[in-house]
């Protein structure tokens, strides 16, 4: 089975009816309804009900739906889980995850609610945001704390404050955290998401950051505006040269299988397993970016 592409995860404030209604029309890879930081304490009940009713009623056109709940150290976390499991988004995102135990406790509560609502255990997936030095140190144990976890994300604002520094355009202060999170995700075999870029007016700075996190190996980025979707998808789209090479690699593999031959080469370069995996990834991205016909290159599953 091909892994789902998650280049863009669009934040939607949970108490904003208009933004929730329109969330699907921009075609981000995932939509994340937020019950946490974008909702004031006095509106937590209203946001929870609004997200619940919209998830039950609207068709999000197959776009992955994620809800960021409040932590269990707040008066809202348990109620969020009770409501959201019944609403059945694809996943629940836990903020400010410091250790594996945070995940285990949320998972236990999700399982209880799944059972109560007659939902098969394990249906609701999870992701965790790592936003502290302790979370970064524990990234791998967080990433592997539950079978439900499909990804971990780095949240930079709280992290840099705890590190006694602040964000810079180059992002050197979060380079270690980004590297640690993406490495932990890869070691665990799950996705890695980068933090938000909040200066909407700085398109150049945003593009530079997206290129950096792509190079580091991230799957994608949390984004705060539909305006950021296009640039991310464009930067993550493979070049024509990458696509042509990937197609040649997979053709050569098919040919070698037919002939029963072992080691093969393309353009004089030996093709081994990592190169084949990269070629498959390039063609998945190319298909998702509309650069290929849907069947082209996408049926090479082995």
């Amino acid at each position, binding site marked *: 089975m091909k892994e789902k592409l998650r280049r863009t995860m669009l934040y939607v404030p949970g*108490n904003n009816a208009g933004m929730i209604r329109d969330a699907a029309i921009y075609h981000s890879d995932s939509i994340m309804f937020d019950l946490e930081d974008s909702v004031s304490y006095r509106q937590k009940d*209203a946001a929870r009900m609004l997200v619940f009713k919209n998830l039950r009623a609207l068709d999000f056109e197959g776009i992955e739906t994620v809800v960021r709940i409040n932590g269990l150290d707040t008066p809202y976390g348990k109620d969020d889980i009770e*409501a959201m499991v019944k609403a059945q988004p694809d996943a629940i995102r836990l903020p400010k995850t410091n250790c594996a135990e945070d995940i285990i406790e949320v998972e236990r509560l999700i399982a209880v609610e799944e059972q109560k609502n007659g939902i098969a255990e394990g249906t609701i997936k999870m992701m965790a945001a790592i936003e502290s030095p302790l979370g970064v140190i524990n990234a791998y144990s967080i990433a592997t704390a539950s079978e439900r976890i499909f990804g971990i994300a780095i949240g930079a604002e709280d992290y840099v404050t705890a590190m006694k520094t602040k964000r810079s355009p180059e992002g050197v202060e979060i380079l270690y955290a980004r590297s640690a999170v993406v490495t932990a995700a890869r070691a665990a075999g799950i996705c890695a998401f980068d933090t938000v870029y909040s200066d909407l007016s700085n398109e150049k700075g945003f593009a530079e950051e997206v290129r950096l996190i792509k190079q580091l190996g991230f799957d994608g980025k949390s984004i705060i505006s539909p305006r950021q979707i296009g640039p991310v998808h464009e930067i993550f789209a493979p070049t024509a040269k990458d696509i042509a090479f990937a197609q040649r690699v997979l053709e050569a593999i098919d040919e070698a299988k037919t002939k029963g031959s072992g080691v093969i080469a393309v353009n004089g370069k030996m093709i081994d397993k990592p190169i084949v995996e990269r070629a498959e990834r390039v063609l998945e991205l190319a298909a998702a970016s509309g650069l290929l016909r849907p069947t082209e290159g996408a049926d090479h599953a082995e």
Partner: protein
Amino acid sequence: MKIVKTGTAGTLESSDVMITVRSNEPHGIEIALNSIVEKQFGKQIHAVIRKTLEYLKVKDAYIEVQDKGALDCAIEARLITAVYRAAGIKKINWEVIE
């Protein structure tokens, strides 16, 4: 559910609705609707409100609705929140919310 005070939920932003619920005992349900789409959807909005009040078992309430083109699901969400606030009940009974 018994309405014991005034409860409001929602906003006056586009695609949202602001709903205020007050006690109306013993005069049953009264709805005061003000909507930018009243001509087209007035009947439908009334129906959504009555159906929601029915499953919440609210018998007497004065419901003031200022609608800015909200979807039915948003109207239901805002009404349920306003009713719970007006009933002074913090814990939602999710078993009856569909």
